[in-house]
């Protein structure tokens, strides 16, 4: 049918009837449209027409007010042909509107319901149903995947097969008729026609399986019953003829009677609980049972005390093959499990022969016996570790575990006797002093309880290296540098002490840089770098020692220019004469600032004579507080009291003699506290009166310079000078507790040479006490933070970089380079080892905190190969990453110069062995050695 033509005709007709002509708009009555309140199946079309009594008669079509509609609600053409959408919209009753193009208030509307296709149901199968669960197949048309089959209007569980086929499951509760239809849900939902099915009651049946059975007397047989035609599938079991014919459980387990009844054929019956009139029988033929036999294996056995043994009992002739196990004589003879596992007792019974019984549970008269002979277990001895490798001089703890004897004691022995080493009763093996002919040694632990029981361990002995030359060189390096490195050790061994000292004395001093930004911090970084790299190690180490006697600190002299004059004076005078050093330091502007001698004036002027430098030059730089004997011991008076070196009167007089020194001024004009040249004398500020200092008179009228010379004469001539300086230097370089003789020998050289520092240093380093390579109980000195850390870097053939960012760490370790907290330096030279009468100056800054921080810096050295603050070279250790004795021996050489105790070697081997990789193991051995007291002490 051509709806298009109809519609056009209708519009034309209306226009003609109403006399409307195009171009003149007139309203002539209400618009109308058709079809009205129509229905459209999805995807179908509907042609609408309109009555338009208006000129012009042109119209627009709307769906739900939308011109032309849209995909969701369907579209409508300008000719009124509505195309339904493929899916019905949620609100499926739509409004179709036709509107005059000329007069928007002239329009007509109608509703249009979009529905899904009508689901036809042609037939169902089966056509009739029984009460209970059912499944039906449905045949029809327009079925959709979401279609629901309904029974009496209620949804069933539906399975979509095809557009013409569905399956559904449901339950028919009662008899009667069920009306089925198909519903397509959702927007545009539509329910199809009904097809009915009758529902009837089913017939109950009972089936028993097996239908027939043959059962021996006394045996059991289980039957099953299947009930059909009812939801209640329970049955009641019974034996026809009663107990004489056997018994049956509620679960259908039939047990035949022990005695043959009158008839050998009996029936067991299953009766439906739902309908007691429905039952089914099974026929049982009873037979005589076979004879029960029991076989036990093994029949004889020997079992160790405390051990177990499995026995097997095989029952035949009866369905019940279970046996009951027992041990004759009870628990003293052991026990047996229900599975036949015999456990021997811990203690030997008397007699030691035990009978094990197995009895058939089917027939208690049937049993078998096994004879078990019990024997005690052998004594075992296991030695741990089973193997070890030791160098001559090493020790090793072994342990022995004795099993099966109350007495676990062992006696230790070394096979081959003392030539192969000795072992203590506690199992500590000590190698022989020399390598035996056969380097494989066996040690043995023998049980005291059973002398035939023993365990062995195999030890491979390695020769002890000769480290004496290494040690000699290393001790020289420790006393003359910031620690040995491979190069210095090799060189000292090659040239010997005196040539080495001569070389060091002749080396030019490392130049001290002038930092571009006048930063004292840059000098600190430079110094750490220089300590670890400078060729003139002896000079640097000696400057370091002298700098702790004659102190200037960047704590007060915070700019580099105020530190440099002092550093240069120390460097230039290090191998010179102490008198010259004192002169230069007195005139040094760094010191002038630090201890306030600069601008010190005679009484009555300015602040008057400043006593600060006067006091410290005596107390700290030359004489000390108490009169000393030449051997460094404190001199006492008649009442055994120490004698003060000087009094406040001496300080005041010395201060006056030192008045008149002032900062020099550059040619370019006055500069505040100029550090560019030694201080100059200002006679107007000088006290020209006579002074008596330490009993010596400085005559009146002397110049500033002449008074200084007089002071130097007085100090240099004072008997304290030599022992005071000798003691300080020995403590700083060699040992904290030198013998009086050592001090006296050095002091005598200082005195004889009038303070020649090269001669004094040579005396310190060549003294028999310094050169004694055998450790003494109270010998050595603790490394301070700088020596300890610089030393480890050098031992690892590394150094501090310049610049570096680590000086702040030394602050935490109480030893900021170039920045002692006071003129007393970082630690007191008189500080004692804690809880000891021994001197141990460096212990003052070795508390738990500083010890931990030093250790953590050590770990930083060992674990941060990419640091820009320092370098280390761990490559010599890499080849030993899997050879713990070899690794430990190398570390022994590098850090302890062969002095590592054998016991410590074993500790380190054990500590490093579990390491994940070579790097970790190398780190462990180096780290623990660096943390050891052996490494902390310069021995």
């Amino acid at each position: 049918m051509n709806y298009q033509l109809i519609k056009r005709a209708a519009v034309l007709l209306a226009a003609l009837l109403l006399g409307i002509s195009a171009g003149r708009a007139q309203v002539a009555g209400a618009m109308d449209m058709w079809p009205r309140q129509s229905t459209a199946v999805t995807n179908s079309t509907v042609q609408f027409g309109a009555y338009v009594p208006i000129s012009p008669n042109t119209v627009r079509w709307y769906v739900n007010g939308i011109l032309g509609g849209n995909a969701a609600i369907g579209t409508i053409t300008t000719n009124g042909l509505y195309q339904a959408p493929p899916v019905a919209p949620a609100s499926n009753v739509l409004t179709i509107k036709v509107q005059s193009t000329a007069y928007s208030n002239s329009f007509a509307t109608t509703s249009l319901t979009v529905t899904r296709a009508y689901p036809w149901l042609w037939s169902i199968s089966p056509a009739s149903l029984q009460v209970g669960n059912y499944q039906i197949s449905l045949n029809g048309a327009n079925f959709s995947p979401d279609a629901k089959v309904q029974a009496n209007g209620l949804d069933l569980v539906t399975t979509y097969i095809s557009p013409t086929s569905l399956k559904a499951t449901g339950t028919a509760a009662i008899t009667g008729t069920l009306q089925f239809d198909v519903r397509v849900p959702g927007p545009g939902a539509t329910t199809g026609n009904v097809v009915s099915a009758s529902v009837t009651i089913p017939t109950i049946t009972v089936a028993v399986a097996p239908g027939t059975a043959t059962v021996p007397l006394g045996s059991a047989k289980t039957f099953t019953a299947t009930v059909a035609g009812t939801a209640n599938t329970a049955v009641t079991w019974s034996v026809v003829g009663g107990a004489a014919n056997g018994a049956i459980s509620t679960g259908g387990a039939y047990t035949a009677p022990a005695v043959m009844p009158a008839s050998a054929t009996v029936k067991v019956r299953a009766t439906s609980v739902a309908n007691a009139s429905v039952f089914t029988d099974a026929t049982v033929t009873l037979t005589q049972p076979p004879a029960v036999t029991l076989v036990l294996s093994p029949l004889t056995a020997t079992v160790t005390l405390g051990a177990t043994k499995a026995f097997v009992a095989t029952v035949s002739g009866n369905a019940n093959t279970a046996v009951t196990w027992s041990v004759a004589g009870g628990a003293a003879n052991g026990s047996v499990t229900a599975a036949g596992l015999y456990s021997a007792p811990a203690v030997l019974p008397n007699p030691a022969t035990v009978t094990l019984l197995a009895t058939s549970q089917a027939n208690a008269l049937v049993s078998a016996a096994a004879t078990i002979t019990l024997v005690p277990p052998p004594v075992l001895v296991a030695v741990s570790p089973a193997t070890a490798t030791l160098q001559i001089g090493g020790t090793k703890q072994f342990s022995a575990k004795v099993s099966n004897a109350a007495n676990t004691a062992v006696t230790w022995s070394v096979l081959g006797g003392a030539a192969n080493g000795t072992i203590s009763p506690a199992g500590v093996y000590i190698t022989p002093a020399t390598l035996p002919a056969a380097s494989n040694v066996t040690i043995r632990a023998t049980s005291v309880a059973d002398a035939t029981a023993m365990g062995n361990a195999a030890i491979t002995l390695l020769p002890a290296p000769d480290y004496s030359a290494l040690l000699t060189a290393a001790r020289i390096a420790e006393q003359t540098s910031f620690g040995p490195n491979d190069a210095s050790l090799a060189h000292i061994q090659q040239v010997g002490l005196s040539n080495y000292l001569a070389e060091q004395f002749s080396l030019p001093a490392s130049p001290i840089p002038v930092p571009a930004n006048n930063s004292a911090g840059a000098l600190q970084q430079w110094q750490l770098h220089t300590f670890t790299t400078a060729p003139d190690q002896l000079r640097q180490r000696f400057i370091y020692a002298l700098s702790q006697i004659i102190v200037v600190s960047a704590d007060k002299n915070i700019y580099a220019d105020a530190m440099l004059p002092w550093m240069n004076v120390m460097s230039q005078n290090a191998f010179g004469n102490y008198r010259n050093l004192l002169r230069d330091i007195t005139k040094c502007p760094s010191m002038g600032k630090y201890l306030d001698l600069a601008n010190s004036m005679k009484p009555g002027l300015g602040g008057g004579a400043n006593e600060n430098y006067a006091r410290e030059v005596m107390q700290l730089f030359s004489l000390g507080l108490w009169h000393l004997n030449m051997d460094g011991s404190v001199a006492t008076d008649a009442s055994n009291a120490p004698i003060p070196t000087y009094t406040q009167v001496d300080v005041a007089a010395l201060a006056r003699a030192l008045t008149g020194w002032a900062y020099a001024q550059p040619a370019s004009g006055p500069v505040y506290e100029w550090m560019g040249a030694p201080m100059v004398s200002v006679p107007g500020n000088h006290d020209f009166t006579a002074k008596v200092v330490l009993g010596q008179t400085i005559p009146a009228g002397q110049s500033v310079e002449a008074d200084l010379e007089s002071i130097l004469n007085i100090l240099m001539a004072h008997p304290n000078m030599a022992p005071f300086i000798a003691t300080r230097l020995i403590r700083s370089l060699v040992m904290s507790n030198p013998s009086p003789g050592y001090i006296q020998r050095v002091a005598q050289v200082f005195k004889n040479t009038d303070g020649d520092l090269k001669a004094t240093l040579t005396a310190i380093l060549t003294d028999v006490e310094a050169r004694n390579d055998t450790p003494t109980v109270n010998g050595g000195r603790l490394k301070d933070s700088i020596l300890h850390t610089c030393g480890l870097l050098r031992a690892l053939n590394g150094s501090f970089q310049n610049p570096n960012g680590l000086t702040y760490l030394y602050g935490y370790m109480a030893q900021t380079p170039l920045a002692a907290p006071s003129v007393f330096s970082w630690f007191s030279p008189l500080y004692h080892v804690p809880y000891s009468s021994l001197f141990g100056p460096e212990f003052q800054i070795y508390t738990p905190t500083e010890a931990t921080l030093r250790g953590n810096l050590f770990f930083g050295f060992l674990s941060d190969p990419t640091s820009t603050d320092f370098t280390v070279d761990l490559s010599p250790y890499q080849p030993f990453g899997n050879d713990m004795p070899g690794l430990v021996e190398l570390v022994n050489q590098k850090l302890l110069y062969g002095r590592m105790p054998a016991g410590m070697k074993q500790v380190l081997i054990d500590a490093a062995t579990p390491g994940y990789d070579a790097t970790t193991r190398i780190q462990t051995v180096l780290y623990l050695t660096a943390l050891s007291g052996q490494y902390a002490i310069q021995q």
Partner: protein
Amino acid sequence: MNQHYLSRRSLLKQLGATALLTRFGWMNAFSQAAPPDYKALVCIFLAGGNDGHNTVIPLSQAGFNAYKQARGSLALPDSNGPLVPVQDYTNAMPFGLNPGLKALAPLWGTGQGTGRLAVMANVGMLVKPITRPAYLANAVPVPTNLFSHSDQVQQMQAAIPSSSAGTGWGGRAADMVGAMNAGTSFPSTISCNGPSVFCIGKTVQSATLLPGFNLDPDGMSLWPAAATAGRVNGLQQVLQFDSGLTLVQAANKTRQDALALNALMKGASATVTSPFPGGSLGDQLKQVATLIKLRNTTGVKRQIFFCLLGGFDTHGSQSWQQWDLLRQVSEGMAAFYQCTEQELQIPNQVTTFTLSDFGRTLQPSGSGTDHGWGSHHLVMGGAVQGGRIHGAFPDLTLGGPDDSGTRGALIPSTSVEQYAATFAKWLGVADTDMPTIFQNLYANLPAFGGQATLNFMG
């Protein structure tokens, strides 16, 4: 890598506290009942030179007028808040504390026996008491390098009026009460802010225990667990190895002590639950409380602690800066007192006090002040004669009798040696030992009117 070395380390459970204690001789103390005899001094050093003039302000009509006239633009109160009003209960003289000290107000008390906080007025380094005319005429010696940070920090911590001091008065006092700490190797002077002269003695060991730094040895936590055990056990054995060499043994002992101390400080008994304000000083005081809490475990009976807060060198922008610093001081001190009272329950056995480089000029320079001399200090604790302004409160007239010059750098009326000696005596230093600690004071005792110690403590 820098911070690496000081960062926290994971707990090494292998370093069991009890096992270490028994080895290091602290077990005796551990096994005894709580020692009732315990005293601690806590020094809070206000580094840079705290302006005492704006810490304690006279509120009498005459006093406040003089203050306002001399202080000019820096006169309080200002936008940081109202002054904290206090009065000396003995004479009802009114004073105001810097608004930053608000948190300490409750400790001032309401009369005799109620105060836990006092002010010691105009304390500074002196050789001998000195008047303005004597000072201007150089007639009496004065400490070297007055007004110099590096020198005055040393002198105030050393209580020695020259810059040459190898020891501090805290360390020397600890030396003298060393016998009371016999039997423990726990350090008796502890700085929570890095090494300080204050803590150094002639015989005692001084430790630095920075908050957050827990003495964990680095590199002791690695995979697999057996490798960790290898290092940890190996270190223990290396440190216990008997070398027969005294110094080696002593060095090993120090490191063993470090491990033991680390375990102690991580133990349950070292957990302080009282609230402390954050920030450097709050952390330091919490560390002090933690260490005090360990006293029964360590057996130490006399302890001296050093804390430091920097930033007081207020040459410019003083108003807010000083208020903020004093706020940290007061909040830290108040929290610390609460902890000693509520948690540690020894408020009368812990005395806290301030110390600083010097005071500052009364006359401002721009928005700040310059280096001065005498200054007011705070003293806190249950044993303190609280609620009072002790000592002579100075005349705040510029060029007046207490001015060393024209700008209000105060001539101290109390020597820091007297201030320190009072604490030392309270701590238990014998009278006969006092001259050893405070040599200048006792050498010039007649000039000080024979008054070595003051009466602000119990």
